[in-house]
């Protein structure tokens, strides 16, 4: 039982971690290009392993737009129906830059901290 609950806690922590990064990941996916919802989902799942459910993404996009970080426009597509493209506004770019900076600093320090753990288990893994 104890192992189970520890496992649940580990998974829960990982889920919280991924969720906490979601907003930054969405802003980052729009850094270089205008994308529509499905493209954002694909970009997130391909580059960052962030499997986001459709039902989670669209409400967040709607809030980010209400906060003025994103803007959007309907564009007629070859598919026969229009698609809603999103892009970063100036405050959105600023926020993305701040978040990326904070993330970088934070992850660099933590990487140093966890290095002994990862190093040992990595070496152990190789030996076997």
């Amino acid at each position: 039982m104890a192992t189970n609950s520890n496992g649940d806690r580990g998974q829960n922590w990982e889920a919280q971690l991924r969720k906490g990064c979601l907003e930054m990941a969405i802003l980052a996916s729009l850094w270089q290009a205008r994308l529509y919802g499905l493209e954002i989902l694909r970009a997130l799942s391909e580059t960052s392993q962030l499997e986001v459910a459709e039902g989670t993404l669209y409400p967040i996009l709607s809030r980010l737009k209400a906060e003025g970080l994103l803007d959007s426009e309907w564009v007629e597509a070859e598919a026969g129906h229009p698609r809603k493209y999103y892009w970063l506004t100036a405050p959105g770019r600023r926020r993305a830059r701040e978040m990326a900076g904070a993330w970088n600093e934070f992850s660099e320090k933590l990487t140093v901290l966890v290095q002994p753990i990862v190093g040992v288990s990595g070496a152990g893994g190789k030996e076997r």
Partner: protein
Amino acid sequence: MTPAQSSDARIETYLSRLESALRGVSSDHKDDILREIRAHIMDSAEHSVDHAGAVDRVLRLLGTPEDLAARYSTECQLERASRSFSPWLILRTCWQWAKLGVKGTLAFFVAVIGYSVALSFTVSVFLKPFMPTRLGWFSGPEGVGLIIPRHPEVMHEWLGNYFIPVIAAAAFLSAIGTTQLLRWMMRKRAPGLAIPTERSFPVAQMPGEAAIKLRG
């Protein structure tokens, strides 16, 4: 009915349930949401051989229309309230927010205490003309503060003729102060924390949550 027709019917049913679940959303915004979700379903199923299966899959990933609508309204409510000056909207939003975590609970307590103080100051301003000697800002054996002591003769009243203007100003300031503090808390909430957590949406109903947990 061909499979294509039946999956079209499922899309229409989904969208009409979503439309009725999006109560309180302005009609422009609602149209925009429905249009976007429709485009998403069509894009997702577009190139797949098994069209009906693909539609089923995307509808499952979107969650039930009611869940999806609830996520839209939670995401938008904090944003709307953080721009609002209506204590009622702010209080209601804090109540919703409180269900999502510690920060929201703290905001809710700030809201309840702050607005209660403002309300009691306001009520006493209106009561003062009816009980000029009994109600006041007293200090003495029965306590200190805005009270109606049983024996006013043993107490010292501090404000005298200034009671109404001073307490009215205090009521105004505490209402404005509470509102501004809560608006600030709503705007300052850490990114990502406003995303509904499994506490507001049961894990079983959130395919994304399950995907996040199982992956890796």
